[in-house]
């Protein structure tokens, strides 16, 4: 068990590699109750979210979810978020565990005085489980009458799962794989029962309970950002390469003015890239990225062996002139320069079966 934002969480249950492969080839179950849940209610909800969130929440239909982020006025990250539209007067923002307190304070300070919106931290009210993998739908289908096939990627609905009514069932995840996230009442007997029933339903597909370790390697293969690594208060939107998820230039939000200014004055000086190690060695978080002759030019934000691709991969910040795929750099691995090359991201992309996420 490790402490993760105040939560005791297992890094692994049966082993990171086995758990990772279960999600890529079958199904895996994650307890992601540590994620924070902030509810916006009232007719002023959309205006408040539009001010805070870089993506365009006005484009959301009821039952639709959207990847976004909250930025500081200088265009760096408070946190990345998922915005769910329940109705015109009701939205749910799913936020990171480690930033929960900070996020909530930030939201209150920015839009707390907006008219017609009531903001509540519902994080402790939900048990959030993620069922991820190509067999996720078949697993969950055994436990609900809801037509899961009708839920498109980044959409959600409410249904009864394991006899628990009004359960939010979202086709979202953080693994680069198809799957669902469900939000249950956080009482322990219900949570435990549903967990066990999902494990039972997935048994024929080789379901494994998955910990933080596999969650990290899965999202890394999919090149999804993790707060405190790829994104932070020291990294701006352009550097992180997430501008496709923003309404920049179309609508104002906290951070947009600084970003427009930055865009006009030449853009970012460094960018996040994918690295694949050429020589033997594993890049880890925080390792230096160097030129081939050893001059420090950047740093690794996340690095690990990739259990699926069987390569050593990393995400790293490098200067603009070293971002082209094929560019060779060196990573300083425990005192040795180990050769790596820039590669396109994501490292892993699942075979297309359904619509892409709404961006």
């Amino acid at each position, binding site marked *: 068990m490790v402490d993760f934002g105040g939560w005791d969480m297992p890094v692994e249950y049966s082993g990171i*590699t086995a758990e*990772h492969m279960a999600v890529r080839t079958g199904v895996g179950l994650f307890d992601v109750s540590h994620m924070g849940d902030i509810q916006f209610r009232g007719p002023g909800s959309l205006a408040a979210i539009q001010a805070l969130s870089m993506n365009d929440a006005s484009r959301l239909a009821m039952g639709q979810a959207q990847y976004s982020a909250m930025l500081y006025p200088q265009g760096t990250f408070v946190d990345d978020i998922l915005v769910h539209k329940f109705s015109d007067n009701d939205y749910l923002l799913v936020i990171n565990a480690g930033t929960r307190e900070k996020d909530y304070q930030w939201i209150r300070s920015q839009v707390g005085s907006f008219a017609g919106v009531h903001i509540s931290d519902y994080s402790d009210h939900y048990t959030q489980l993620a069922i991820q993998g190509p067999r996720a739908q078949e697993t969950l289908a055994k436990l609900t009458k809801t037509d899961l096939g009708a839920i498109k990627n980044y959409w959600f609905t409410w249904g009864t799962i394991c006899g628990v009514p009004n359960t939010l069932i979202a086709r979202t995840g953080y693994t680069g794989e198809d799957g669902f996230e469900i939000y249950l009442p956080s009482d322990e007997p219900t949570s435990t029962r549903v967990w066990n029933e999902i494990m039972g339903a997935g048994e024929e597909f080789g379901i494994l309970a998955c910990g933080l370790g596999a969650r990290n390697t899965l999202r890394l293969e999919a090149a999804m950002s993790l707060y405190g690594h790829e994104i932070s208060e020291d990294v701006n939107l352009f550097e992180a390469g997430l501008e496709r998820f923003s309404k920049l230039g179309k609508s104002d939000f906290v951070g947009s003015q600084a970003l427009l200014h930055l865009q006009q004055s030449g853009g970012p000086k460094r960018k996040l890239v994918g690295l694949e190690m050429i020589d033997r060695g*594993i890049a880890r978080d925080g390792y230096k990225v160097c030129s081939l002759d050893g001059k420090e030019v950047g740093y690794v934000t996340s690095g*690990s062996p990739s259990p699926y691709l069987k390569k050593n991969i990393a995400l790293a910040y490098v200067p603009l002139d070293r971002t082209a795929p094929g560019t060779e750099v060196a990573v300083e691995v*425990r005192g040795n320069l180990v050769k790596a090359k820039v590669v396109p991201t994501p490292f892993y992309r699942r075979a297309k079966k359904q619509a892409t996420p709404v961006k």
Partner: protein
Amino acid sequence: MTYPATYRYTKEHEWIDATAGKVGITDYAQNTLGDIVFVDLPKVGSKVEKGKVFGSVESVKAVSDLYSPVTGTVVEVNEELATAPEKINTDAHTAWILKVEMTDPSEVDQLLSAADYEKFVKEETH
């Protein structure tokens, strides 16, 4: 898991089979590391020093230094681990990493016995 009584152990979780000069990491260490993907082996002929780093072992989640239980010269490394590092996960107490010719065989006496190591691990996990 039982720790072979004929081996001696370090608090850094290495074992040494003094009769053969074989050095490896303990079952507790492999279990803590998880899936091992890479073992950085020293060269044959290189010197190792008691308590000093001689290499590293990497799992999916972490990298860990290897500390030599004794002082001496590396006479053989387990090349099998270069392509099959997971052997350490399967059986840590037979998957030796290197063989060392000890400069002072009496150094072994300063190391932990199996019973003492087991006690040490129990305390560490509490």
